[in-house]
């Protein structure tokens, strides 16, 4: 097969001593950058980008891809240990990763995250290798209507689940949607909800600020209150036998992980979507197909594996439109794209034909980066877990510092730090009143995407609402979305009916 021989050539590049060293270096750096709340792959790639001139372009992109990959693995670390998602892609990981850590299973959660990331990453690299070029056309077929349908689907995988108080879930989604409209409106160019004329609100409310506020600060406040005497976080130990047991536990999750891998790859491939909706959808699907959905959110290992598989698969998937269409799917891939332009490479449909050495070198380095990342990550887990043994009083202060620094670093505005404080306090109150926080964060991430694509479609179709169901792709998504919404209702109905049927028989 032609693909395989090209890939073999690629490996000849990526397995050179220099490039192997670069991969190890990049993955380790990325791992730590990703593990810091507030610092993500964007920052890592941005800092290193100008340095890449000292090595040949193929090595340079390998370094950047390794950082990108490492950060994806690292994002789970702060989600699990501190309950603060390091990046939007790791939000879903906190839902079950954090409760696991509180039960003293931080080590197991991290093992699950690392192996799931590895599976997701590997499956999607294989898909990438085999189908990169034909799949580019699918990405092109995605217009605003399809985008809207996909985001709607992501929402319903969450709402239709039941479990939590449905009314409270909907209230939180609405609140998140309101927050997501703050800032400059794309369509009209007018500022909205800027609280008088506070310049800080012009840029909108960033996801990171909300997540750090409600999860980081809110959690710290909550923990201080509930654990006046005993620390809530059980220090976890990690031994080799536990590692083996952890890997064994992962064995049972192959279904969740294969769904996560494919879902992540395809959603990540769509230029507008990316890894965040992919990981949230994977979590939602894992929960709704689970036999015991009520254990989700309370420390179910499946709830860690699902989003982690999907977000790594999606990060590979989002390289696809960047390479084949020249359209970045995320800020990080935008920087990678910028890097390629600097090295005189023209991303786009011709890249695979004109620069096969570069493309296949990059693809093969994704394989090596994946292996390096999982190995380094597993080796470092004891170190990460050890950090949790800190006295609670120290850990609390440390988390608060990380929250402030993490909120300030990306935008460098004090405005965001104040917002974090406000969201932290608000999040604490909401938590006390038993409101679910995940839908709030989800709505803020997906809201702008949904509103934008909805209005674009309506403008383009002269206000015709049926445009969404007239196109085959978007119609399919909307049907699945409806199904997700109705499914819990049907389940409930069936339960009631069964009772009726079984009652007279007794």
């Amino acid at each position: 097969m032609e693909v395989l021989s090209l890939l073999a050539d690629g490996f000849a590049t990526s397995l050179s001593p220099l490039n192997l060293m670069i991969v190890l270096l990049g993955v380790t750096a990325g791992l730590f950058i990703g593990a810091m709340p507030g610092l993500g792959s964007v920052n890592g790639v941005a800092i290193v980008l100008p340095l890449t001139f000292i090595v040949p372009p193929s090595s340079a992109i390998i370094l950047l891809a390794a950082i990108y990959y490492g950060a994806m693995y690292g994002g789970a670390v702060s989600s699990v240990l501190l309950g603060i998602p390091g990046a939007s892609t790791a939000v879903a990981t906190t839902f079950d990763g954090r409760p696991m850590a509180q039960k003293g299973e931080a080590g197991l959660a991290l093992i699950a995250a690392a192996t799931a990331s590895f599976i997701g990453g590997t499956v999607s690299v294989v898909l990438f290798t085999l189908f990169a070029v034909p799949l580019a056309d699918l990405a092109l077929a995605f217009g605003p209507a399809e985008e809207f349908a996909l985001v709607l689907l992501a929402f319903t995988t969450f709402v239709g689940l039941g479990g939590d108080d449905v009314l409270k879930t909907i209230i939180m989604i609405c609140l998140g949607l309101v927050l997501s409209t703050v800032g400059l409106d794309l369509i009209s160019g007018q500022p909205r909800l800027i609280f008088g004329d506070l310049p800080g609100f012009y840029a909108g409310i960033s996801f990171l600020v909300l997540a750090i506020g409600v999860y980081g600060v809110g959690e710290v406040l909550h923990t201080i209150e509930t654990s006046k005497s005993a620390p809530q976080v059980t220090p976890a130990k990690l031994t080799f036998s536990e590692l083996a047991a952890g890997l064994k536990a992962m064995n049972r999750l192959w279904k969740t992980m294969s769904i996560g891998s494919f879902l992540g790859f395809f959603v990540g491939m769509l230029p507008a979507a990316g890894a965040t909706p992919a990981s949230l959808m994977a979590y939602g699907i894992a929960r709704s197909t689970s036999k015991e959905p009520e254990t989700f959110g309370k420390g179910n290992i499946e709830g860690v594996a699902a989003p982690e598989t999907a977000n790594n698969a999606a990060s590979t998937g989002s390289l696809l439109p960047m390479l084949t269409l020249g359209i970045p799917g995320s800020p990080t891939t935008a920087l990678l794209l910028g890097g390629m332009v600097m090295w005189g490479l023209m991303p786009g449909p011709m890249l695979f034909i004109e620069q096969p050495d570069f493309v296949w070198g990059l693809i093969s380095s994704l394989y090596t980066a994946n292996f390096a990342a999982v190995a380094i990550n597993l080796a470092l887990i004891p170190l990460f877990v050890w950090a949790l043994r800190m006295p609670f009083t120290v850990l609390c202060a440390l988390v608060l510092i990380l929250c402030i620094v993490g909120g300030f670093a990306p935008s460098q505005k004090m405005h965001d730090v104040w917002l974090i404080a406000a969201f932290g306090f608000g999040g604490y109150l909401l938590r006390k009143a038993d409101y679910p926080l995940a839908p709030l964060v989800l709505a803020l991430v997906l809201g702008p995407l949904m509103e934008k694509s909805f209005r674009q479609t309506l403008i383009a179709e002269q206000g015709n609402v049926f445009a969404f169901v007239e196109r085959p792709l978007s119609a399919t998504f909307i049907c699945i979305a409806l199904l997700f919404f109705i499914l819990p209702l049907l389940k409930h109905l069936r339960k009631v009916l069964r009772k009726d049927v079984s009652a007279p028989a007794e």
Partner: protein
Amino acid sequence: MIHKSIRGGIVGAAVTALFTLGSTSLASAEDWAPQKPIEMVIMAGQGGGADRLARLFQSIIQKENLASMPVLPVNKGGGSGAEALRYLSDNSGDDHKIMATLNSYYTTPLRNDIGVDIEEFTPIARMALDTFVLWVNADSDIQTMDDWVAAVKEAGGTWKMGGTGTGQEDSLVTAMLQDTFDIEITYVPFKGGGEVAKNLVGGHIDSTVNNPSEQMGFFQAGKSRPIAAFTPERLGAFPDVPTARELGHDIVYWMQRSFVGPKDMPAEAVAYYTEVFRQLSETEEWKTYTADKALMADFLTGDELQAYFLEEREKHAEILAAMEDEAS
């Protein structure tokens, strides 16, 4: 204080540490030299065309050792660049801050009162003028400007023109087209030029006025077709594509890519930065990039640049006023 020390501590320290190994200072003719990293404020968010170009400048400066201190790009894209403009006007006299501009440099203060007068800023250098071209999908039957106008007229207002946000460059060019040909167009705003280009090729919109750099990849793959260029002369990259002016329609529009400093930037510092950018404009990388992307490298500095800015601001005020008349 917290503000300063954290930034210095985190980003500054990391980047300075990374770069000191490469910065064997350049012996410049001027006596002034930066004492700490230079902040390059970008009027747009990460990943867009403006951001990519600013980071290209940064990397060339770094690679060619044009400045004795590292350059730190900082994105302040909020409110179509209002955030960056305010930031610069709040830092009068600072000689370690420069800003990469685009056309929102004029339009943002014109559209909203943000308390900024660009006349007060210190012009440093204009690096290039980005060009605009009318594009259609390669599957379309449209070959000429006349075909295009006829097709738009036939669509009766449902013709979908994709572009960047309302009030930004693409929408201004579209307004000029509507005005010149007396046609009605449905303008669909997207988040960035790359997304616009993709939606044209995917068949979700009917035409665009993308910068050549945004469509180049698709053009080379034979997926999109340039119809006319909004430049005074034909573009080197598309010698067969006529200009609108040739066809008898006087539509010329540029996107300027320049650098300015805050109000009252010391003259020695201005001279230093001007020299950095003059050297940059002569590098091989920059020449290759401008040729590849059909960018007009048109270096301009000092008072001439200021005169250019003011003239452009006047022009944009007129276009915006005409757009508002139409909307009301």
